[in-house]
């Protein structure tokens, strides 16, 4: 079995690769269209997705 540090680093590298490839394939990031720092007090409805939400 590999050492824990090796496994942890390999996992983080794999996730970093996934994120990098995803940035290239997804809609461009735009910090100027980002939501306010906190939802509470923003006046906007929550727009994230959650596992408890109904499908669709």
């Amino acid at each position, binding site marked *: 079995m590999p050492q824990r540090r090796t*496994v942890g680093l390999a996992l983080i590298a794999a996730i970093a690769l996934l994120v990098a490839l*995803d940035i290239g394939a997804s809609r461009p990031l735009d910090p100027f269209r980002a939501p306010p720092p*906190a939802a509470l007090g923003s*006046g*906007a409805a*929550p727009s994230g*997705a959650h596992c*408890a939400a109904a*499908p669709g």
Partner: protein
Amino acid sequence: MLLTRTGLVLLALVVAAFLALFVGLRFAILFLVGVGFGLTLEGLRFGFAGPWKALVVRRDGRGVMAQLLAIGLTAAVALPLLAAAPGELMGAHAPVGAAMIAGAFVFGACMQIVMGCGSGTLVNAGSGNALGALALLFFIVGSFLGTLHLAWWTNLASLPVLTLSGLLGAEGALAATLAGLAAVAVVVGLRAEKGARLPQGRLFLAAALLAALAILNLVVAGQPWGIVYGLGLWGAKVATAAGADLSQTAFWAGPGNAERLASSILTDVTSLTNLGLVAGAFIAARWRRVMDPPPARPAARLVGGIVVAALLMGYASRLAFGCNVGAFFSGIATGSLHGWAWFAAAFAGSILGVRLLAWLQAAPRRAAGLEPAR
């Protein structure tokens, strides 16, 4: 150098700065919240699957008591917040149904075989456990597959979404939630051995930190802490990159989910906290200099069991509208009845899972003549 304590913390802050500059401040904060979850869970050894097993097998209720405390502390702030800002915050509310209950039962059984729940699998993997990393991979696959059939499953017998706030009002919901948690604590106390009832100091601290982070998650994201959605999204991203057309599926054709699929992972709330959680667990493991000797090569039967259980765990968590975090922790803390149903079903499944794991682990020993067959 980068793997020293200071280097690791700096690296996490650099990632957060990148997110703040190129994605948005909210997303940077959520990544750091995730790092906090990982540091707390791994650094203070706070878990969900392990304490349930400890209560069943060793009559040790300390870990479960800490879970109940963390949920109660979160509920004490989250429920009034949800009542005060219903247009800005939402709870982890889902319907109780046949598939939901069955999914929670299967999840509870499988998390004992995998030796990690939703958050536990991320922590195990991030801290460098090879079997945890393998389980995470199949958990992701299972979560994605679960999204493909979720609409069919939820059309089976199901109640409407019921919340304690809707039934009892905001104050009644908090009182009922705290009373319910206290009642469970009494049962746990009766089950636990003397001296194994009150959590240790580190678990008190962990419960308080988890509650603070969960409330911060709610305030910043507008929704409670979750795990599974992000993992299913990662699976969907890979499937799409491999050429799959998910626009024809009921789940991913939905406006919200299609939006998430078209946008970067770095703008998805649960993905960010998941990423942070893995990073935090890695930092905590390095910080504590976890230098376990390389474990013996596990039996193929156990590895096979973990792979199948992780796959089922991911699938079941979609049917159950969440895992130990999204349904149990956040569901109960935000007043959803499905959180309580999830807890009961998953705990029953966990009792079965403990026995299945013992069977998987004992079989090779019996074959080697190390212990008699029973």
